[in-house]
């Protein structure tokens, strides 16, 4: 591996996106949870949920701020690092990028209003109504950006003749075939991860011995939501896999270590590849890959050997795929267990092992998000726009990029640490119990 401009551009893009996606995911999912909590609080006239919504919102302002600045960085950095891609892409896929800025506007405006108008309206529902444009704006921005990413996988809506881009159809480019499954999976997994992180925080508080009604309500709400969203995520993941089998078989084949095109293909779970290209040490689920790819146990699945050698994605993305799926299954199982035990009114729903299990689900979900993106993006290699433009042809020709990489690495390091420190300080300095007492002195 050589540290040339292309490699450095890829590393910098990867670093920026992987950092941004942490905050972007929270940015998309947490408003949904805030909206739920405030809704329950008003509906049931339960101040615990209202305090919950307030506290989540306060933490959210910090993560949104980092999301906004890192997002601004990506937006410009894509032009700085991949000028040729942005020139071709800009001609065809600028529409959703442009629409995304309106979604940002919408979200930013109403978030500003929401934050500073808690006690300003006579009718409590008015304030709750403000969560809807926030939620709409953030999910719409996920929608639009994912459309762009889907376009990179299945470019549509233009023709190339003598090096010129002609017959541009922006709407066809936007509604490209990869769009529905990708958007569905990205949005569902963002909701799931955000709920899981909030559940982990609640579980942590209870583990620390703060077992009040407030914490228990928080845990019940977030764990139930995590479970429902994880079902949606897994379903969307299944849709994505079926889509890949159809439209990007090389990505699925590399993710699954599926070499020979065959019917009734096995699903390979982890394992290693030896020098002769044979899979060892793996768990095999007979015919399951065919099911994942086509909904029946004898669907034919295209193998890597049928793909031209210079268009095969790297094999290591298999581990990314397995990590993501394993985490998905784990989170679903642990939250289901909690919900069932809680329903059964058996007190041990708050037992230590189960709480630890939920605590782990939060960070694990974020790891699944990262793994999923690395799978999706690296699985597109060597293409930046599949079938049209290779990564190596798109990178910048500028040569100061090594220094730029170091500068950004430092920036993210500082931002990451600061965010964590500020968030911890913020909630340590004002424990929930104190806040409840201050705001609602007359209630138990």
């Amino acid at each position, binding site marked *: 591996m050589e540290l040339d401009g292309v490699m450095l551009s890829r590393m910098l893009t990867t670093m920026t996106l992987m950092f941004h996606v942490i905050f972007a995911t929270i940015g998309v999912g947490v408003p949904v949870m805030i909206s739920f909590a405030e809704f329950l609080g008003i509906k049931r006239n339960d101040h615990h949920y209202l305090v919950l919504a307030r506290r989540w919102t306060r933490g959210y*302002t*910090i993560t*949104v*701020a*980092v999301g*906004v*600045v*890192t997002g*601004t*960085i990506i*937006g*410009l950095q894509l*032009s*700085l*690092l991949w*000028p040729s891609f*942005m020139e*071709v*892409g*800009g*001609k065809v896929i*600028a*529409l959703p*990028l*442009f*629409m995304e*800025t*309106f979604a*940002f*506007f*919408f979200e*930013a*405006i109403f978030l*500003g*209003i929401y*934050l*500073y*108008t808690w*006690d*300003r309206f006579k009718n409590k529902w008015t304030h709750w109504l403000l969560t809807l*444009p926030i939620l709409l704006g953030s999910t719409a921005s996920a929608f639009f950006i994912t459309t762009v990413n889907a376009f990179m996988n299945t470019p549509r809506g233009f023709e190339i003749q003598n090096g010129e*881009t002609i017959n*541009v159809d*922006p709407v066809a480019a936007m509604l490209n075939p990869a769009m529905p499954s990708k958007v569905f999976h990205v949005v569902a997994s963002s909701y799931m991860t955000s709920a899981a992180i909030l559940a982990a925080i609640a579980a942590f508080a209870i583990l620390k011995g703060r077992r009040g009604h407030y914490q228990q309500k928080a845990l019940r709400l977030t764990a139930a939501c995590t479970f429902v969203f994880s079902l949606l995520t897994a379903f969307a993941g299944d849709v994505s896999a079926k889509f890949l089998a159809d439209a990007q078989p090389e990505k699925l084949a590399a993710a699954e270590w599926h070499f020979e095109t065959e019917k009734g293909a096995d699903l390979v779970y982890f394992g290693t590849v030896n020098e002769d290209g044979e899979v060892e040490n793996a768990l095999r689920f007979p015919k399951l890959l065919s099911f994942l790819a086509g909904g029946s146990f004898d669907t034919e699945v295209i193998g890597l050997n049928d793909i031209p050698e210079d268009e095969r994605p790297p094999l290591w993305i298999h581990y990314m795929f397995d990590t993501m799926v394993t985490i998905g299954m784990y989170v679903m199982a642990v939250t289901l267990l909690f919900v069932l035990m809680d329903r059964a009114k058996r007190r041990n729903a708050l037992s230590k092992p189960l709480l630890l299990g939920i605590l782990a689900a939060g960070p694990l979900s974020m790891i699944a998000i990262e793994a999923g993106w690395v799978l999706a993006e690296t699985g597109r290699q060597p293409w930046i726009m599949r079938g049209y433009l290779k990564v190596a042809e798109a990178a*910048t*020709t*500028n040569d*100061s*990029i090594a*220094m*730029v990489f170091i*500068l*950004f690495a430092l*920036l993210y390091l500082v*931002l990451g640490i*600061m965010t964590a420190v*500020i*968030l911890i*300080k*913020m909630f340590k300095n004002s424990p929930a119990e104190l806040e409840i007492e201050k705001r609602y002195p007359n209630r138990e």
Partner: protein
Amino acid sequence: MNYELIGITVLWTFLYGYIIVASIDFGAGFFAYYAKIKKKDHIINDLISRYLSPVWEITNVFFVFFFVGIVGFFPAAAYYYGTALLLPGSVALILIGVRGSFYAFNNYGSRNSTFYLFLYGAAGLLIPASLSTVLTISEGGFLKEIDGNVIFLAKELLTSPYSWSVVFLSIVSVLFISASFLTFYADRAENNWARKTLRQFALFWSMPTIVASLLAFISLQMHNPEHYSKAVTEYWWMFGLSLLCFGAASWFIYIGKRYGAAFIMVMLQFFFAFFGYGASHLPYILYPYISFRENVTSDAMAAALVVVFILGLCLLIPSLVLVMRLFLFDTDYVKGKKK
């Protein structure tokens, strides 16, 4: 239809919007730091944060809108600037990153750290300085194309008098715009001490603004005579109107009345100067490589962008009006009586 003209007008208008709202924000950082070291922070800084907290994200989106719009309407411009500006662009990005997040950390998280405020205030002056170099580069002479590679001539930029006059102009304009807005805001809040201090700032920074503008003009004449002659022959009246508005604004601030009108005059002053500059810059977006007529995107894309833009405005304008009514024209909020 004439999409390239619509496109460039939309983008220029948003850039103008960004210059106004961002200047208020950037300058406010400087004043906040100044008030802190003078130990007057409790008076000014509450006022500033009451205005900034709900709107700083919106300000940032103006900027995002502008560069996304450039990629959409003029993809070739994105290619040239993108290749050339990796280093200066990255520096500006890092500054924006530090400033935005430190604002949030300071304001929503732990309060009142002098160190944060210093970084915040300093970054607020460095960002306009570094962003203004993009306008300088657009005048030509700082990029070279060799074998299809676009090369940025950093040394030429750093030694050019024109480039420094633009940097100077951007910094003093930021302070002037910001001070005149905050004077108005303090006046609405009936916060006498803050108003008095901010009014002095506004008066203090008014003269340098004009001097800097003249310097920029003179050095433009040396750097890009073609642009200069177009500005003074075809668009001289725009700059004349700008000067008149400046006079009116300074007068209002000087007599200490009608701060709202004064701020509107400041906005008009910059409006005329900015559009006069922009109009005389055309047809080039990047002299002499990119012209807005030849390098505009396809009709299909331009039409789609314009449609989305109009729909977007229908969503945006009522929401912005709502924000202004809640945070700018609601006297109780401005005075800090509402949380």
